[in-house]
């Protein structure tokens, strides 16, 4: 609780939190405030006007509707990938770091292998081989399964450092099993750390989805912020100066990621007193 109080005193954290909550609220209540329609409502690339506030896309669809849809997709992918990457990474990292031995060596080896093979490459390879049935959920799953490595490495380092602490030895002498020690005595220490890893993983999930969609390998079943950008690029909106085709979605992506980075950086300051002034 003291940490939370400290955090709320940091203007950076508050800014980040407010921005991030704003995007979530927009995604949640957007469909109730604005009628979402994927139908043609105006001419191709009509500039912003009263009936379509942010103009229309190449198919004459309303950009406000597309952006709300896209925002929901991006947040969904971010959370899905973030939860998978953080859970898998944390479990493997804690277990390996705490247990040591051959299990640790094996986990370590896999982590080290996959940490240097760019996950973007794996994403391209899988997505390009799945011509149909490339859904948003599937992309989120793939992103989560390719990015857990660095949460595993980060958490492992922390849990290995905790291993030799006195209170752990004490718990072991008391006869606590591995699972009990991990849940009762290691996880609480790592909670703040895992939280930061999670925030970063959500951000990287949103970015990865946008990047893969941007190059034309995005979800086929829905609109995401990345697919909006991909369309804009394919139709030459950038060179034609049709700013409403790409500025709003780029701004939304940047705001989400910036907000998450602010939260992460300020949390780092709160957890590591030296960074505070």
């Amino acid at each position, binding site marked *: 609780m003291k940490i939370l109080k400290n955090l709320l005193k940091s203007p*950076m954290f508050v800014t980040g939190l407010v921005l991030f909550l704003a995007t979530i609220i927009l995604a949640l209540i957007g469909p109730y405030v604005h009628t979402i329609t994927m139908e043609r409502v105006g001419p191709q690339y009509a500039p912003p006007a009263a009936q379509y506030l942010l103009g229309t896309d190449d198919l004459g669809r309303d950009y406000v509707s597309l952006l709300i849809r896209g925002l929901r997709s991006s947040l969904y992918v971010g959370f899905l990938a973030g939860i998978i990457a953080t859970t898998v990474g944390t479990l493997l990292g804690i277990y390996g770091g705490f247990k040591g031995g051959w299990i640790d060596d094996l986990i370590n080896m896999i982590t*080290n*292998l996959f*940490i*240097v*093979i*760019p*996950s*973007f*490459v*794996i994403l*391209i*390879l*899988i997505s*390009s*081989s*799945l*011509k149909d049935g490339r859904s948003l959920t599937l992309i989120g799953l793939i992103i989560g399964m390719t990015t857990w490595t*660095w949460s595993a490495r980060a958490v492992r380092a922390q849990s290995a450092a905790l291993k030799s602490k006195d209170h752990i030895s004490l718990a072991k002498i008391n006869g606590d099993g591995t699972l009990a020690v991990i849940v009762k005595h290691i996880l609480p220490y790592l909670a703040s750390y895992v939280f930061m890893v999670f925030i970063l993983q959500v*951000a990287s999930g949103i*970015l990865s989805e*946008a*990047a893969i969609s*941007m*190059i*034309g*390998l995005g979800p086929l079943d829905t609109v995401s912020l990345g697919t909006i*950008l991909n369309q804009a*690029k394919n139709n030459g909106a*950038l*060179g*034609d*100066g049709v*700013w409403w085709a*790409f*500025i709003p979605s*780029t701004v939304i*992506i*940047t705001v989400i*990621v*910036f907000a*998450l*980075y*602010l939260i992460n*950086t300020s949390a*780092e300051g709160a957890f*590591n007193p*030296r*960074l505070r*002034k």
Partner: protein
Amino acid sequence: MLKQYPTLRYILQRGGWYFLTFLVAVTINFFLPRLGANNPVDIIMGKSASGLSAENARIKEESYLKEFGLVKVDKGEIVRNAEGKPVKASGLEQFANYIKMCFKGDLGTSFQKYPKKVLDVIAEAVPWTIALQLPTILFGWIIGNVLGALAAYRRGVFDRVFFPVALLISSFPFFVFGMLLVYYFAVVLNWFPAMGGYAQEIIPSFSFEFLRSAAYYYVLPFFSIFLILAGGQAIGMRSMGIYELGTDYIKYAKWLGLKESKIIAYLFRNAMLPQLTGLALSLGTMISGALITEMIFSYPGLGMAILTAIQNNDYPMIQGCTLLITISVLIANFTVDILIGFLDPRVKAGLQIGKGN
């Protein structure tokens, strides 16, 4: 073994490790695209077979099948069964064939630019990518770290302005920043060209005119990668620097009344090592991000080659590019590892007592 040459041992050890990683990467590169049930030959035939007679279509299909190692080949001829149909190669045979071709440096033939070899297409693109990415990553790293160390040391107004700006810039996704730069500087202001690597009417050569044109087209892509990179590095360096500032050796140096520049030099040296490790870890992301920047600018490098390949279902091309990207990330990581081995006193000490790692 090799106890008396700890450095060589370290290099060999790391090299062996990266070779193993390379093998895994090659395996992934082979099996992942085959996860989907799609047979690449069916897809390409669906597109290109229309308008061909049945006989021509069959010949074409067989040549594709052979090209991709999907059928058994003996002495350059397709092995046929009793009915004259080609015999399908098993997954394992395909894999063995693929590995053999990889080590021969043959990445197959491009679908889209048939009969051009994948390697030739890549060879045309790679110089552009290297010319764009190598200087950007190096300069971005150096300048970002210097600024970050300064911000950590000075704090105050400089830091209060610099830090949020760096944070904002570094949270721009690569492609977003590239798009905004194109829109503002190329479309609105019309200062720089929006796409391409050189003016269309010039034929690439080492003439002054071509180099001038290439330099002009270089500006926007360079800055769109450089600023984000430098911002990210500066933030990392700043927090490392602040951490180091609290350590005893810096306090001692301050008590001794050493010159500020000297203290910053010490600070930089020690905070730089984790930054180098960080560089190794984020190289993959950086290179992928920079590839997307190339796509935004239609820069004639690898990124553009991948984009074109994806749009045309050019599987051999996609796989060739991904393999090459992985290899270059591995080589870059290996280089950084070796550098750390020479720069980090802890690794060096570990080497001298012969503990390796």
